[in-house]
């Protein structure tokens, strides 16, 4: 460690990994993973989202899962929740779409309307 600035840089990087344990108000990406979701590929979707977030060094995003939302015919579902805003739900998500949701919605703040379900 050559300087305090170096420590601060390292700390910022490491804090992202520890965020999960802080219970902060985060952007939440929820993948529904009931039997229906998993059968239609939710696991691959989740991995893709994690990878994409990691690759882009995105901060303040919690990725988590939940059970069946009752919309089994639209699985895999991905929900994006920003504090203070309405929840956005995407249906029929695959790996490719998942990566695009990260780029468009999480990075640029653009909701991809045609993939959302009401």
């Amino acid at each position: 460690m050559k300087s305090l600035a170096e420590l601060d840089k390292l700390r910022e990087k490491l804090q992202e990994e520890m965020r999960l344990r802080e219970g902060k108000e985060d952007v939440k990406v929820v993948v529904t993973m009931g039997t229906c979701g998993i059968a239609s590929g939710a696991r691959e979707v989740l991995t893709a989202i994690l990878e994409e977030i990691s690759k882009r060094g995105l901060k303040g995003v919690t990725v988590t899962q939940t059970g069946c939302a009752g919309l089994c015919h639209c699985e895999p579902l991905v929900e994006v929740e920003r504090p203070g805003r309405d929840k956005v739900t995407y249906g029929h998500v695959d790996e490719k779409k998942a990566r695009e949701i990260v780029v468009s919605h999480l990075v640029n703040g653009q909701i991809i309307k045609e993939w959302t379900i009401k």
Partner: protein
Amino acid sequence: MELYRAHVLVCAGAGCISSGCQAVKSALEESIDRLGLKREVKVVETGCMGPCDLGPVIVVYPEGVFYRQLKPADAVEIAEEHLLKGRVVERLLYKAPENGKTAVTSDQIDFFKKQTRIALRNTGIINPESVEEYIARDGYRALGKVLTTMTPQEVIECIKKSGLRGRGGAGFPTGLKWEFSAKAPGKPRYVVCNADEGDPGAFMDRSILEGDPHSVLEAMAICGYAIGSNQGYVYVRAEYPLAVQRLSLAIEKAREYGLLGENIFGTGFSFDVEIRVGAGAFVCGEETALLASIEGRRGEPRPRPPFPAQEGLWGKPTVINNVETWANIPPIILKGPEWFASIGTEKSKGTKVFALAGKVNNTGLVEVPMGTTLREIIFDIGGGIPGGKQFKAAQTGGPSGGCIPARYLDVPVDYESLTRLGAIMGSGGLIIMDEDTCMVDLARFFLEFVQDESCGKCSPCRIGTKRMLEIVERITRGEGRDGDIELLEELGHGIKSSALCGLGQTAPNPVLSTIRHFRDEYEAHIYHKKCPAGVCRALMVYAIDEEKCNGCGRCALVCPAGAVYGEKKKPHRIDLEKCLRCGTCMEKCKFGAIYTI
């Protein structure tokens, strides 16, 4: 850096290790592997989370779901249900003993909710073997701040202003201690961490070393800068192998990152730490004996002054603080002395960690602001006394401390108030006793302990405590004599004023404080030959309730002395001449027919 969607924190404090957390962790990891979740879920071993009686415990983040008393099979279920399908396993959640209410996350549990964690800020949250996780939680930033923006004098002023006092027992102002060393002539100077925690029932220092070792190292380096020292020693007992192991690893990692060693943060300041393992003599927790032991001499105390701050290790100025004191230093530097001084009471600032043990529902580690009442600690956080029994007294400060009876439950706990009650803060052991505890027997236990641990260098401690023990033992045997209480008091005060070191000077405290608050129990033993709590066996008289006894003969069968007699199917009797007072008959009676008088 790896991003995960969930972190599973497995408590690996010594308490959870002994209740089998390693098997739980393996089961969890195997299941995660089998279910293909390895890329998504990270398993982290942490230091003690505090609620030791609930172990093994795990916490699943980001939700913060708290699971307790797990077996390996439960871990498999958590992996399959919670981690794979996102369904919380209700059955394994914590239920409050008083109302059966289920808590999902730890912040819904009173035990956690009512605590303020400064010294324990990282224990149970970070992986103690990862310096990275410590850095992520602002670790080593205080050291960086001190080295790059503060003068040594400013550091000392900051600690003085915070009002921090030594957490090892005596409560000496920490900043003042540092100042004495900084001003003392003589070089080199040394920084020492006293991790020779020896009080029966106390384990907070161990938990900090096991759960957050870097906080101690960072604080020692800060002190090194403040007093102009380049070398620190941690004196830790060999009975704490896990603490030694994690501390060694922490030193190694800190050196790798250049946070210990030469030219830290490019400022030209160098500081390193070495471990000295003690053989587990209680007296080595006394600072002068500890220094002797580090130097390789026999662990015996010497008279003070000169104090170690002036003439310590190898005759050089030395700052000795205990583990918990050190753990408070980095947050004081980062958040400022005013913040720290705003917590606690007028003369006792900050928080205190207590090791709750004995007859209390939630045993474990708790950290509360100074000035919290005993009632809050024992009943709100500790969950009260098990089995609907009555609270009788709390013992603080181990063999140097004393008892606080129930009528003082609402006294705010700080250094001064405890001293006024004839107890001491001590290192934070807090043993709770219910109506079944005999206070004379308790005093006997602590006397036996100090007799065992007395180094023998000075006669008041070596001989005086022996004589006191003999008297107390005689009382518990039912051979107490008129004048014994007064003799104990006289001896006790004599030893207090003439013993060489802290061990001897405080050794009579458990006797004196039990006499002060429970004199009637001593009198019952001596004059009425009775033990009101029913503990001292020699004073017990066993009898059989003829109404309840159906003459099954079980008691007669198990009696080793053949003292129980009677015809089959008819009420039995006990021959008191033959009775050894072992209590086996009472234990074995299925009808509750045998009682003591």
